[in-house]
């Protein structure tokens, strides 16, 4: 390589068992998505056969910002009726 540069960053999601969700396990550098998938197998699954792996370019992820957290989440705090726990359950239902 004539010029030193980093390869793009990918986020890796692994589903260890059928029926479970894909979980974020970490990230890695790779030249493209196909290579990222192969490295994900080597870096994050080792002998985990039957796993399903997703990779996505980190730059394609749109994330909420911590600085906006107040506007994003706080308004929910003073509206307890938005939470299921606000409601008194009939005895028959017991706990939820």
């Amino acid at each position: 390589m004539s010029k030193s540069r980093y390869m793009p960053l990918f986020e890796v999601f692994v589903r260890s068992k059928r029926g479970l969700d894909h979980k974020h396990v970490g990230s890695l550098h790779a030249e493209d998505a196909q290579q990222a998938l192969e490295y994900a197998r080597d870096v994050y699954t080792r002998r985990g056969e039957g796993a399903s792996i997703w990779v996505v370019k980190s730059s394609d992820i749109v994330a909420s910002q911590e600085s906006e957290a107040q506007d994003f989440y706080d308004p929910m705090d003073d509206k307890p009726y938005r939470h299921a726990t606000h409601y008194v359950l009939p005895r028959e239902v017991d706990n939820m």
Partner: protein
Amino acid sequence: MDARAAAYAIGLGDDALVLGQRLTEWCGKAPFLEEDLALANTALDYIGRARFFYQAAGVNTGRSEDEIAFGRDAREFTNHLIYELPRGDFAFTMARQFLIDAFMVPFLDALSTSRDEQLAGIAAKAVKESRYHLRRSGDWMVRLGDGTDESRQRTIAALDTLAGYVDELFEMDSLEAELATDGIGVDRARLKDAWQRTVARVLEDATLPQLATGWNVSGGRRGIHTEHLGHMLSELQFVQRAYPGLQW
């Protein structure tokens, strides 16, 4: 497993151990972290394979896998020469890996139908690893061959060096011929067409010239090695040579 099958298993174990050792030499030195782990994984696959073959061979001869791996000199190793060549640069390591993976897939596929249950079992497990190895090394051939000028030149140089070592993979000595007839071993010569097709297709995808023919060396199965094996074994065997029987 009789003595003939045991000798056969040791040859296959030597192939695996020697290549595994060459691959471990990249540990901590690969071009980047992800590739470092991938190479180390491949190395572990091969060392695991060597252990299975040695264990199978040792049952009858009463030798442990450690004694077989660490207690023999270069002349007693029966690996093919291509496995022992120094790791070279990254292009050389990948080009060798690709030529071997393209061989291993049909070879292990065939061995998995061996009449010897142990050999068949080892092969059935290992062929899955080799299919993955081939996918990786074939991918790298395309990246390197169709990459930068430098990666291309290095890959061409590697293939030139390796071209003379591939014929040995298809050689049958009298032991292997006998075992192939008995349905225990694999007739290597019959794998060559499939191997050539795989290699030709990937090299074409990689815009690389086809493998040169016209020279070849052999001797590994008779214990006649390149100058490189002894040096490699001195490192591989050091601990057991210095402290025989050491357990850890």
